[in-house]
């Protein structure tokens, strides 16, 4: 059978939406900067700590 193309945006989130690690309500709806920080810090900066 031929499977349909499904748009990600048409698929619902869970009711209890969960933001990325470190995100806060005051950061507004856009967690982009948090996303970048989590990735960069986890991969690059840990070695620089004591």
């Amino acid at each position, binding site marked *: *059978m*031929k*499977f*349909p*193309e*499904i*748009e*990600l945006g048409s*698929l*619902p*989130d*869970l*009711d*209890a*939406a*969960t*933001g*990325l*690690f*470190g*995100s*806060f*309500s*005051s950061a507004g709806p856009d967690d982009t900067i948090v*996303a970048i920080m*989590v*990735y960069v*810090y*986890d991969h690059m*900066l*840990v070695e*620089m*700590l*004591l």
Partner: protein
Amino acid sequence: MHIDPQIGALRGDTAAQRAMSEAVVQIVAECRKDAGLAPVLRDLEAYGSGARLDDCPALTGLFADGGAAMRVIAPLVGRLVEVHRACPLAQVAFRHQSRPGFHFLQLAAKGRAALGLALHDDQAVQDASAVATFPDSEWDEIVLAGAADIALLEIRGERRDHAVIDSRCRTIGAGDRLSFAGAAKSRMVRRVHGRLLTLRLTRIAPRPRPTRQYDLATGRLVHRASGDRHESRDEMMMALLGRMRRKDAAPVLAALTRSGSDHLRWQALRECLALDSAAGFAALDRIATDPTDDLAPEAGALRARLVEAHPQLARWEPAPCPA
């Protein structure tokens, strides 16, 4: 774009850049070997790996009184200040955050544990303190300098989007220690008397619940964030694979729907359905038909919705078990 002349000059001077970078690496290496700090870092590693705090004498010693913490931390801060005086543009790449009223510098992180300096000042916007944050972690903090009125918070009852929070106020000053653990306890700084500098040790739970933020006045849930940075990293990786249309990642995404938090499993399912609807629908059906799966109701509803929108999916049957 304005570029400061000093920074502009540095851009073309690779020798100066290297000298600064080496100065920072040298200072950090010296700090790691410091007689007061080295045993603390060893203990932090053990604590971050799951040891009891009581079994980490150098670490517990730090929190015994403000003087002990100052004796270990002051030489470290002195060295960092020294390197910045010598090289004002040098970057000491410690995790940090700074916003009006609050500044935080993470000194060390090992496994699940982290040690840092937190400074509250009286520049905070009053409205910002109306929201309390509850991370799922163990928290030990000692006041190094200054004083503040704080509220010790405990969630007495919690429904999906609402909590009953008990609040007890007290004033803390140099040498006072705060310790609490678990996702139901937290503390909030209500009023700072000039400044409040603390040394903070935290350890995230092995399988942390999401961090929740509640409006203190109403008890309303205003935000939930994953308590697990590794899980958030996985979520970002999944999103990236999805945006890159990496259809070959669909089996990995389908596998990720089998374990982890409900949130991560659901995101893996969404990405999998959008990348490869055949693989995604198989995963969706498996979840929807497993009555022991917490996501079964949501998966069942989504399956019904997809079948309605794409009637050919009604003819789908699970592949026979290879065994």
